[in-house]
Every structure is written in structure tokens, then in C-alpha cells.
């Protein structure tokens, strides 16, 4: 029994998970004030609210040491599933059990364009739950990794002055600075120039070694093949296939007509 547990320790268990988004004011096609008023006056089950059933009954068990790719066409529920695993989106039905706190690789939302890169590094680090000392310790690494200062002293300028590539690089560098138990990466590899992409792939491999389990969402089959040993294929919010990378990717490529 004990040996078995050592071999396969579950880190994430999704049990018949359903996620439903509610969108206000999109029930009928008409967006006029009178239409909104009539929606309020009409007593329905939930007035003026349209439901989007993004994930429908997904179940799987992820184990320590696995790197799991999530594939599927646009809008198939991949990012929603990641957010639900991280506990950021409440489940409509079903449950997600996790070992420790899964974290999503993404601090974009905490950063402010009007602040300098320097302050954003600190703010982003604090938002991810790092202590001030940790941030001070890693500050130089983050800046060096992003390569922001290669073309002059940009880190002391507001982020709104950065090119979109530079901003994306800084965001990834901040996000990747923390160690995680269960790490989830949502299309982060697509940012920056070739040189930076290479550097970030290396960093993700490093993070994978430290993290228990890695989830990766990507439309790039090559990067899934390079980094993952298991693949979940989602289509219309349902789990269509779950298995070793090569097997699932072969079916997926057949499906997408490549």
C-alpha cells in the first residue's frame, strides 16, 4: 500500500466538474433600455441573465510528477478548467480536490500600466504572495531574465511606455519568479521574440522540476509534445480524450484535419 502511494500520489482530483458563467444583460439580442426593463418586470427563473455552460462534467486525477497538456479548439473551456482547478472560479456542480495551493502563472491583472516596471515587480510579487524579502532577493534576477534593461534603463519608466513585447516579457518574468506546488501555465510561451521564448521554455522546464504537477494550455502541438507526458483534450467543455501525449495528439491532429 505504502509503495503504491509513493508511486502515484494524486495532486489534483476533478470530480464531475461543471462551471457556468453568468452574463448580465445578454439574454435577448436587444440591448435597449426598454428590453432591459421588460426583462426586469418579467419574472423568470433568473432575469436578464444568460448562462454559459463552459465546463460540463469533467473528471480526472492528476498525479505528482506529471506534466499535463490541455488541448482543444478555441472556447472549449481550457482556461476555465484551469481557473476552476486553481479555485478561482467557483464550481456550479462537482468538486476539485487539490494538494496545496495550485497557482496560475499570471500576474497580469495585478500590474498597473501607470507604474514603473520596478514598482510593478514588487507589486506583482506581493500579489502572488511573496514576502518583501523574497522579492528583494529575486528582484535582480527578474529584471535580468526579462531583459528589459538590455536596451537602456527601462525598468524605471512606466509600463505604458513599453512595447507590447517588452511588457509581456516583464509579466512572464514576474510570474515565473515564484516556486509552485501545482503550476498552471496558460499560453504563456507565445510571448516575446525567439530568444526570449527559448529562455522561457527553459524556465518552465525548471519550474516543472520543482513543482509537483504542471498543467500547460497551448495551441502549439510542438510545445505540448516537448513538455508534457499526458494530454487532456477538451471539446465544448467535455473531456473528449485523456491519455499519453502521442496517442491523444494523433487523434487531435486527425480531428483538426492536419
Amino acid at each position: 500500500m505504502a509503495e503504491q502511494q509513493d508511486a502515484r500520489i494524486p495532486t489534483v482530483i476533478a470530480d464531475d466538474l461543471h462551471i457556468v458563467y453568468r452574463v448580465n444583460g445578454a439574454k435577448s439580442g436587444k440591448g435597449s433600455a426598454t428590453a432591459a426593463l421588460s426583462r426586469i418586470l418579467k419574472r423568470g427563473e433568473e432575469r436578464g441573465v444568460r448562462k454559459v455552460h463552459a465546463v460540463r462534467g469533467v473528471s480526472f486525477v492528476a498525479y505528482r510528477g506529471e506534466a499535463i497538456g490541455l488541448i482543444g479548439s478555441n472556447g472549449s473551456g481550457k482556461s476555465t478548467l484551469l481557473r476552476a482547478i486553481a479555485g478561482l472560479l467557483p464550481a456550479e456542480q462537482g468538486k476539485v480536490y487539490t494538494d496545496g495551493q495550485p497557482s496560475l502563472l499570471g500576474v497580469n491583472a495585478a500590474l498597473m500600466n501607470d507604474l514603473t516596471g520596478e514598482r510593478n515587480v514588487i507589486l506583482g510579487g506581493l500579489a502572488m504572495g511573496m514576502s518583501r524579502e523574497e522579492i528583494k532577493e529575486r528582484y535582480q534576477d527578474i529584471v535580468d531574465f526579462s531583459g528589459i534593461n538590455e536596451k537602456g534603463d527601462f525598468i524605471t519608466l512606466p509600463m505604458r511606455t513599453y512595447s507590447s513585447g517588452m511588457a509581456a516579457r516583464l509579466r512572464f518574468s514576474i510570474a515565473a519568479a515564484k516556486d509552485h506546488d501545482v503550476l498552471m501555465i496558460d499560453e504563456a510561451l507565445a510571448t516575446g521574440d525567439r530568444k526570449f521564448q527559448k529562455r522561457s521554455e527553459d524556465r518552465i522546464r525548471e519550474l516543472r522540476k520543482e513543482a509537483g504537477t504542471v498543467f500547460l494550455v497551448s495551441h502549439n502541438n510542438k510545445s505540448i509534445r516537448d513538455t508534457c507526458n499526458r494530454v487532456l483534450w477538451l471539446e465544448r467543455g467535455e473531456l473528449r480524450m485523456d491519455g499519453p501525449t502521442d496517442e491523444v495528439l494523433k487523434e487531435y491532429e486527425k480531428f483538426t484535419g492536419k
Partner: protein
Amino acid sequence: MSETTHDATVAVSAPAAPDEGLAAKELAAKHGLSVSGARPSLIEYVRQLWDRRHFILAFSRAKLTAQYSQAKLGQLWQVATPLLNAAVYFFIFGLLLEADRGMSREVYIPFLVTGVFVFTFTQSSVMAGVRAISGNLGLVRALHFPRASLPISFALQQLQQLLFSMIVLFAVAVGFGHYPDLSWVLIVPALVLQFCFNTGLALIMARAGAKTPDLAQLMPFVMRTWMYASGVMFSIPIFLADKPAWMANVLQWNPAAIYMDLMRYALIDEYDQKFLPDHVWAAAGGWAVLFALGGFVYFWKAEERYGRG
């Protein structure tokens, strides 16, 4: 695609697990996994919030700085905005409407400016609270932190904004002959209590605003009614002298009026006991504790639901 076909696919291709046969719940229990996104206990929640204190402070200061970073005069607006605000109210209520009702100019102008600033502190905390969750869904859906960090951080931002306004307020008070004395020390407890009250109110509004974002449209009217009823630009006991006593009592005991009166009492020499309701400090403390604790528990109760929809 029906449920049965997808179940079949999964069953065929999923790698066989040694724990097979166990239900998900039993498997989770066996390996000590916990439900993701579950609400922590109240004590645990307070501890998590304490761990995030640096983030709360940094976030409030970042918001404050970002506010004026595109303006040419930059952070000077932190002081210029309240100053202009006070000038507008003085022009309308002091010169045009003559709402001073027998108060001398030396008393009325600091009275008015204090009222405007202190009420604005509560008003902007409420407005920021309404949008604290609903306006930051991106942040709520991307990162893990106790959600109460957001409304608390916004209330803190308003406190820092008020401290800039206090510079203007001190200048006005001194300009009209009210020099610093021992009673100015009372400003500190008055502000602390009002901040607790505001934070509690912001927490309540944050939960309400997360469920009903329409509140952001409605609240300006509620706040304006509250402002006119609280005696920001007139003295309640003087204005309602010929009305039944209970009316003045109700208005004077409302938290906004209490905190304004305390600040005026501290700053303005002639604004003494007779303008204040009885047990004013007890009322100020009571409102602060009631709203801070009540608001915190009320917000925590919905912790796992923020970010939906």
C-alpha cells in the same frame, strides 16, 4: 456529444490507477487533498489577510499614485483636488445660499471644509467598495489572496487621500484663526474610528456590488441624499431648531454626522460641546466596531463565491 460516449472514451484511455475503484471523494480523503477554493475558517482568514498586509498597503499606494500619473502637475493634484472642492462648496453654500445661519465666517468656512472632506472620505470608500470586486474580476480570477484585501486596500487608499486633504484643512483652519492646540490630538482617534467604520462599509458594499454591479449606478444618489441629511454644509441643531427634537437627534446620531462633528470639535475652537450630541465618542466607537466586525464577517461569508459570473 452525449454524456455516455465521453465517459466511454475516458474510461478506455485513462491510465489505470492503483487506487481504482475509490470514489473521488474517498481518494481525496486518503491522500489528504482538500477542496480547491473552499472558504477558510474566520480565524484562518484573518491570518491569511495578515500575511497579505504588505500587498494590501502596496496595492493602495500604487492605486493612489497611478491616479494622477498622466497629469502634468502629477501628485500635486492630491492636494489641489480637495482644495478646489472646498472652494466650490464655499462659493455655493457660503456666498450664494448663505447656509451659515448666524455662524461667523471664521467658524463657518472651516466647518464647511471639514464636513466636505470627512464626508468625502466615507463617500469615496463606499464607491470604491462597490467596485472593489466587480471592477477587479481579472485580478480575482487570476490570483489567490483573501478577497477582503481588495476592499480594505481601497479604504486604505481613501485614508491616504484624506491625509493629503488634511494638509489643506489645517491651512484653512489656521487661516481662519484656529491655531493648533491640545484638542487637535482628538483628530487621531476620530480618524481611526472613521476608518474602521469606512472599511466595514466598504466590505459590505463590495459583497453587494459583486452580486449586483448595478449598485455602482445607484450609490451616487444614495450618497448624495446621505450627504444632505448629515449636515455637511449646515449645522443640524441650528437648522432644525424649530422642528421636533427627534429629527435633529436622528440626523446627528448617524455615523457620518458623528465623525464630522468630532473632527470639527477637534479643529474649531468655537465649535464646542453644545453642537455635539450626547455620548458622541461612545456613538463613534459603537458605529466603528459594529460596521468593522459586521462588515468583515458578512464579506467573509461569501468568500468562495467572488469571481463567479
